[in-house]
């Protein structure tokens, strides 16, 4: 956990107005693990005031990649960075995915920009079979950048299966019978809630990367509570205890 100032190497705009920012940051590249995140100060002044959390989408050598779309002011400023501009990074933060469990099949479940952490995770799943279920509201919200074996769902049916990505997953569960499966998920809370139900019902091992408003990103503000299934008297902190949780251990 440190603060580094790293230069932008490349700005890539994918279709759907999704941006990939390539940043030369050996300090982060060498220490970050899939599922961990960075808290980024997008400007060098008080507007916007707070840092913005982003997953690391991928790492290549000394370079890291962030994936985002223009959501509000912070991501707008980020998207307008020029090559050579400084990015003020606080990280690596949080606990990443645990991919050392005993499983032979990895299932990625992602909604919208929830795909962001998976290109990096995929690099660590080389010896596993990977199925990916990728959802979006509409075809333009579906991002499959560096996703392996994607099956697609859209709420409006404009691409792939018509329905939610969790429904799509449920329909396909028979295909993975008799395998040692672990699910890795990231996406909107509504999706994670449905996924949690499914995993509890079918007794599936699942880790989910959760999202919430954050100020500090490293445990000092208490701004990011999430209800724990095990201890109703105390919240967990998304930034420090997560963002990746065993989906059965949190109430989303």
């Amino acid at each position, binding site marked *: 956990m440190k603060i580094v100032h790293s230069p932008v190497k490349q700005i890539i705009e994918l279709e759907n107005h999704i941006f990939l920012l390539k940043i030369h940051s050996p300090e982060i590249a060498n220490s970050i693990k899939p599922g961990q995140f960075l808290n980024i100060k997008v400007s060098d002044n008080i*507007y916007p005031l707070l840092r913005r959390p982003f997953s690391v989408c991928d790492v290549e050598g000394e370079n890291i990649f962030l994936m985002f779309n223009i959501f509000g002011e912070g991501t707008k400023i980020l998207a307008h960075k020029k090559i050579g501009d400084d990015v003020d990074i606080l990280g690596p933060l949080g606990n990443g995915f645990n991919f050392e469990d005993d499983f032979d099949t990895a299932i990625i479940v992602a909604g919208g920009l929830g795909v962001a952490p998976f290109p990096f995770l995929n690099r660590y799943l080389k010896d596993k079979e990977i199925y990916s279920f990728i959802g979006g509201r509409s075809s333009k919200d579906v991002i499959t950048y560096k996703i392996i074996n994607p099956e697609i769902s859209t709420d409006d049916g404009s691409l792939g299966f018509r329905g939610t990505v969790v429904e799509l997953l449920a329909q396909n569960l028979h295909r993975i019978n008799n395998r040692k499966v672990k699910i890795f998920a990231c996406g909107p809370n509504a999706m994670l809630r449905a996924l949690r139900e499914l995993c509890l019902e079918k007794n599936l091992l699942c880790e989910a990367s959760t999202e919430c408003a954050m*100020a500090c990103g490293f445990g*000092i*503000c208490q701004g*990011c509570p999430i209800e724990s299934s095990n201890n109703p008297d*105390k919240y967990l902190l998304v930034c*420090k205890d997560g963002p990746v949780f065993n989906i059965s251990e949190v109430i989303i």
Partner: protein
Amino acid sequence: MSSVDFKVEIGGLKLRSPILLASGTVGYGHEIAEFINMNSLGGIVTKSISLKPRKGNPPQRIVETPAGMLNAIGLANVGVEEFIKEKIPFLKKYDVPVICNIAASSVEEYVECTRLLDYEESIKAFEINVSCPNVKEGGLQFGNDLKSVGIVTNKVRAVTKKPLIIKLSPNVSNISDFAQIVKDEGGDAVSAINTLVGTAFNIFTRKPKIKNVNGGLSGPAIKPIALAKVFEIKRKVEIPIIGIGGIMDWKDVVEFMIAGASAIQLGTVNFINPIAADQIKKDLEEYCVSNKIQKISELTGSYILE
């Protein structure tokens, strides 16, 4: 090494530097210690401790606003018992004065908390939070009521000989009246300010952005208000003041000291720039050297009015 004398004294509390970390913005010090040199800090003010552990408010607890943020953490904390067992031993690893901030819903609870913690020698002073806007019982009611603040000060004074600092609410018309009663009832110093009551709505869902509805506004946005409060107290009451509110850099520190602060606390800035305390110390040293200021305490209340 620096030739500038950074020592300050706040109502009997002798500190090696005027730079403190504000309550609720550094937890109990664990995480921030990875960024700054705890052993050169003026002091660390703990997250508000209450008698029993508090779970705090449900999410969403924070939201950004123009040059500021709202928070409604709801005084989530481990409670006195765990604080003594778990947190104090950690803090003892460092050579840093600990100021224990206490929150409560009744006068009795303030007294009981202080009594239980008083024998902890690593606690160098108490800061009594009578001004948290984010809890339904106690909190603001206390902080905005002159009599209550007087009673709390008086009763807590009776159970501790350590320096007693009362953290004042800015949500009042005349903060100096509160500083006066703190002084009259035996308090040693005041901290000014806690957060201002604010809110924000999501215009699409029409719900408050913060689950608790109201939150406390902090950050640069409130700096002019905090400065006016510090200045008001300085002009009207002879009591040491710890200035808080929107401090981002060394210039803000100098401004608060000129306005009347003997020391300052860094709050929201820790979230954005966790190395701020060290950076500010270094910058202040340079400023003092180049302006031939030998003792930083000379700055306190050094404003010039025509």
